[in-house]
């Protein structure tokens, strides 16, 4: 018994070489930058961009030169509130569309012959092998006014006496782009979950009187909820902060909060305000996640 603490210590020491590098990595490249941004969000902008010093000499003694003005601006000006709401809306629509598109696909892959599953998954992640920007530019061509798609749509609209529309540089284009970019992040966790389902459960449900529709809603879907949550989080959070897709496909009336944040750091040179907007966005994402978790609980209770 006496040597047990020593053995425990030895075991902990033995784990260090394995756990230390990732811990160090996260502290250096995640925690420290986040803390820097927290500080930045309560500082004043520097004269030529960047940040003004956090400690200043004032009437003989040193004091902290910090402010909550950045947050006040971020939450009080209507334009930003609108952008937050719009981004939230785009992210929700993107998440729902991704779920609706990814679910049947993931189910199909999970239930396909084992021989083909890896190939099908490979096809899902294949687009990642080409550059992100190139894929978005491809969408600019597909949705562009000269492409067959826009021409066809406008011809159809013209036939029923409606004004032609621009597919590109519209909220529609942004949603298409966001769904396209994030779809694999929904498919993979869903597939990972669905693939583990015991097919006997569906046999049992059918045996006990459940038709195909009931088998899905009473067995498959509730069992897949962890995959749904994981996929939704992986899509919703990056979609909420997206800036490249709305930048390229959105035009002026479909910009998102991510574009504004990027602008604060680059063109406007107001790092503190950009940082404050970032944290408000983070809060929005957290609130949305909490709301989703709460809704999920309610759903499960109702299923009882």
């Amino acid at each position, binding site marked *: 018994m006496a040597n047990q603490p020593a053995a425990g210590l030895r075991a902990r020491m033995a784990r260090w070489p394995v756990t230390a590098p990732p811990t160090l990595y996260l502290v250096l490249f995640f925690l420290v930058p986040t803390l820097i941004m927290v500080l930045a969000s309560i500082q004043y902008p520097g004269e030529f961009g960047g940040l003004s010093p956090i400690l200043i000499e004032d009437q003989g003694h040193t004091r902290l030169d910090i402010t909550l003005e950045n947050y006040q601006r971020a939450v009080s000006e209507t334009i930003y509130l609108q952008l937050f709401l719009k981004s939230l809306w785009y992210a929700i629509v993107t998440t729902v569309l991704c779920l609706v598109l990814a679910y049947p696909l993931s189910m199909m892959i999970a239930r396909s012959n084992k021989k083909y599953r890896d190939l099908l998954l490979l096809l899902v992640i294949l687009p990642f092998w080409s550059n992100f920007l190139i894929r978005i530019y491809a969408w600019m061509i597909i949705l562009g006014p000269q492409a067959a798609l826009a021409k066809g749509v406008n011809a159809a609209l013209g036939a029923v006496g409606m004004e032609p529309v621009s597919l590109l540089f519209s909220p529609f284009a942004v949603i298409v782009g966001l769904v396209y970019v994030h779809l694999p992040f929904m498919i993979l966790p869903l597939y990972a979950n669905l693939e583990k389902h*015991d097919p*006997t*459960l569906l*046999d*049992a*449900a*059918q*045996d*006990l*009187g*459940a*038709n195909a529709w*009931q088998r899905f809603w*009473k*067995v498959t879907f*509730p*069992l897949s909820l962890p995959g749904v949550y994981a996929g939704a989080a992986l899509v919703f959070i990056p979609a909420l902060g997206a800036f490249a897709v709305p930048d390229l496909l959105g035009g002026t009336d479909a910009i998102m909060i991510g574009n504004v944040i990027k602008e604060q750091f680059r063109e406007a040179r107001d790092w503190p305000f950009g940082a404050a907007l970032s944290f408000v966005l983070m809060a929005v994402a957290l609130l949305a996640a909490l709301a989703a978790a709460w809704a999920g609980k309610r759903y499960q209770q109702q299923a*009882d």
Partner: protein
Amino acid sequence: MALLEIRNVSRRFGDFLAVDNVSLEVGAGEFFTLVGPSGCGKTTLLRMIAGFDQPDTGQIVLEGKNLEGTPPEARNVHTVFQSYALFPHMTVEQNIAFPLRMAKTADDQIKPRVAEALEDVRLADKGKRYPHELSGGQRQRVALARALVNRPKLLLLDEPLAALDAKLKEQMQLELIELQREVGVTFIYVTHDQGEALALSHRIAVMNHGIIEQLDEPSKVYGFPKNRFVADFIGTCNLWEGTVTSAGERDFVLDLDGIGTARAIPNTTTKAMPQPGQRGCLTLRPEKLRIAADLAPLPEENSAAGKVHDFLYLGDVTIYIVNLDQGARIEAMLPNAASGRTRFFEVGDPVKIAWRVDAGHFIDG
């Protein structure tokens, strides 16, 4: 009229004939068992009754109604799966309520019926638990309660005790028999465990290569196996080869290879009196043999002499391997509670064995 009729059912998977022209009838209230080695077609037959698989030819008729084209969810037949297949996201109560909900049972009916079903399987206090919080035996009982709660005409059980340890298995066997008697639902039980089949069933169908080798009561299947396969598959059996030397009225005389002359009775299933010159084998269960240091055979007994080659002490019984003087090696079982038992035989001890003429029967071919 039988509750379930299987008429000339065949099922082929590619080149493999899983079920080969099987016909059988199961009566209402019966505990019927399909037993056989893996790949014998018992599970395929069960899946066809449940509706998960369709016969290539033949019919499955439940209460006079051909089930062809009726999907599993519309059959008044439930299955207890080997893995139990309890829904992991539902509590025990929700699992048991599932078939009631699917059958659109009124809400105020569901609660009392679930409670009653839990009572039936002695799990009244476990209703709020999730399946992963239960032991193997408890999960088994939930699966039973769920399958029985809306009183199906027929309950199919696919090796339901296979995952349990020996002690629990025996207890669950007793519970199954009691439960079946209580609820009065017809059980069709599939197992590869011949002991389980003997212990549980009213009737047993022994299957092999897609056909039914023998269909009878457990004592008949065990005591008088119809052919070599059944003799070998169900329990341990001495199969003594020999040639018929003369036929009589009720019995006949055999010259058994390496044993000697013996009187025997014809196959109790076919009842065909074998003719002189015919070859075949005599089936004798080890416990039907009398073994003693010295014995005078009774008038209706055959006997032989030999030496103990080896023995297995199993606690309740001892199995002796005896080399007969004429050359054959046989197996005899002696209960250790036998009255007048003073000592065990040791290896090399001379012994005599004797058996009644009707202790086993003759299988031709």
